[in-house]
């Protein structure tokens, strides 16, 4: 188990380094002078030079890299061009919103998706199965902003059940009001995904020899499904859901825009549109950290679910 963990941690560090380097390279290969792009065409030479010096762009590349890396590891991610505040502070302020949205959406997705997938697998090739398959296919065909817009139109504009702008203000009710529509809009898409994965994993498992053995033993069918089959199906399901999380995080950006919800997404879009490089760098770092953490957790879950993994 320890080797397993050490291996995963090592991979996490490698990923982090790779992405940080990628960030560094990306920001600097942009055509044109970053400082000039920030200040615009009309800026004077002195202003541009001053900004370059402030950004540390006049130092040799290798030095820029070390400064950048050390800073990132120390927690000093620079200062936002737009707000003048430390990047890390801005990021941490909105991070909980995004995490909350992601987790609730995932929860909805699994809660709806796993039973639906199992149900479809048991009734394969019958009407229930086709219905589940088509609807889950439709569900995951929705671009996240389309499902968000539709929900907004129906439940916030046409029927004023929910506010158009989702930012809570204290009470449980307010929290519920602000998270429901965004979470459902993401959650339904996640549920579609989880349903498909569960269905195919269950079908795979149900055709395995050990399910036949369980039936030959006289075990009741529902026990075969839930204890013998699903436990094995969880292994690939966990793997795929873990991979899906990074897609979910990407999708949350779009949802946050539609529902005007604070979070990493809004911060990112602002930084992109205004060329706020320090902020962009910081955002990439935080996204990487999130994904790396998610991968680690998935691996741990995987290790618990599959006794064969424990040995490593």
């Amino acid at each position: 188990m320890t080797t397993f963990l050490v291996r995963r941690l090592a991979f996490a560090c490698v990923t982090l380094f790779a992405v940080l380097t990628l960030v560094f390279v990306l920001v600097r290969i942009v055509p044109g002078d970053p400082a000039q792009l920030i200040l615009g065409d009309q800026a004077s030479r002195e202003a541009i030079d001053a900004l370059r010096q402030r950004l540390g762009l006049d130092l040799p590349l290798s030095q820029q890299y070390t400064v950048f890396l050390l800073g990132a590891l120390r927690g000093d991610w620079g200062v936002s061009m737009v707000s003048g505040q430390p990047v890390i502070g801005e990021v941490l302020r909105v991070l909980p919103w995004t995490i909350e949205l992601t987790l609730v959406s995932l929860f909805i997705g699994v809660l709806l998706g796993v039973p639906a997938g199992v149900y479809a697998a048991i009734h394969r090739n019958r009407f229930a199965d086709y219905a589940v398959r088509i609807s889950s296919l439709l569900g995951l065909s929705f671009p996240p902003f389309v499902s968000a817009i539709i929900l907004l139109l129906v439940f916030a504009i046409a029927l004023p059940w929910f506010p158009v702008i989702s930012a809570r203000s204290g009470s449980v009710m307010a929290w519920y009001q602000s998270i429901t529509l965004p979470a459902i809009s993401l959650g339904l898409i996640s549920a579609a995904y989880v349903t498909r994965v569960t269905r195919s994993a269950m079908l795979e498992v149900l055709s395995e020899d050990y399910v036949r053995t369980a039936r030959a033993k006289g075990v009741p069918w529902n026990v075969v499904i839930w204890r013998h089959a699903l436990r094995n199906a969880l292994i690939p399901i966990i793997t795929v859901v873990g991979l899906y999380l990074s897609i979910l995080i990407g999708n949350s950006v779009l949802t946050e825009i539609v529902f005007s919800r604070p979070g990493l997404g809004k911060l990112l879009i602002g930084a992109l549109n205004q060329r706020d490089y320090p902020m962009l760098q910081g955002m990439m770092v935080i996204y990487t950290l999130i994904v790396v953490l998610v991968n680690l957790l998935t691996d741990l879950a995987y290790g618990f679910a599959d006794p064969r993994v424990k040995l490593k």
Partner: protein
Amino acid sequence: MSTGLHAAAPSPFVYFASATLKAFNTNKTSWIGLAVFLIVVLAAILAPVLAPFDPNDQNILEKLRAPTLEHWLGTDSFGRDTLSRLMYGARISLIIGVVSTLAAMVIGTAIGMLAGWHGGRLDTVTMQAMDVLLAFPSLILGLILVAMLGPSMVNIIIAIALTSIPPFARIARAPTIAVKEREFVDAGRALGYSDTRILIVHILPNILPEILVMGSLWLANAIRTEASLAFVGLGVKPPTATWGGMIREGFENILDSYWLALVPGVAILIVIFALNLLGDGLRDAIDPKLKGEA
């Protein structure tokens, strides 16, 4: 000795054509998906002929009209005809989607096959690199790439293609490894065939179905990414009509002219759904277990 094989054998071409037909027929919905997709493609190609108006023709007097006989899908805030913009937007989405997916398919497959074939260090290093790229939310990576490079059609294609390469590499690698272990590959080596020959003549045809199915499913994804980019403001620059851009503009007016955001949204949904139906149906054909007839 020759039981049951008395009929004349069909030529290989006929055999493959009938196998493809059978694949489509396995899950009838793939025909629907194909049909809808082809309609959209046709509409896009014939847009210059079919579109009632010039998509960039502004007419302030007609702005923000609900659907009428003259403008079947209404007009936007500049008075431009939504239907025409929709048809032209289809061209952008399709071109970007198809080109980026094809590029990613070719490059990703080559990488995956080579990694799977050689194994060892090359494989580990390549796949770790792919994993690193895969781990990062691809939409965000795409956003940042386009923001850095500047939103033009070429750059968008590059950005989407780059984020699409790792999945294709993964998809090509697993069956390559599986097929590599099969004895006809060993037989080929024992017969003195070169590695290249084995890869191209023996392994590739055997993994092609999976790659093509993945291609059609990924095309849906590429179109969705393009729309997302445009929605966020990083699509092909206005005034060119893009579906995502139309939704973006429509979103600004969402309280009174909801159809401006809804119509292109539904259009994207339909195209993606059609492609998913197609790809999914084909996938059922090549993997019998998923159909439930193990």
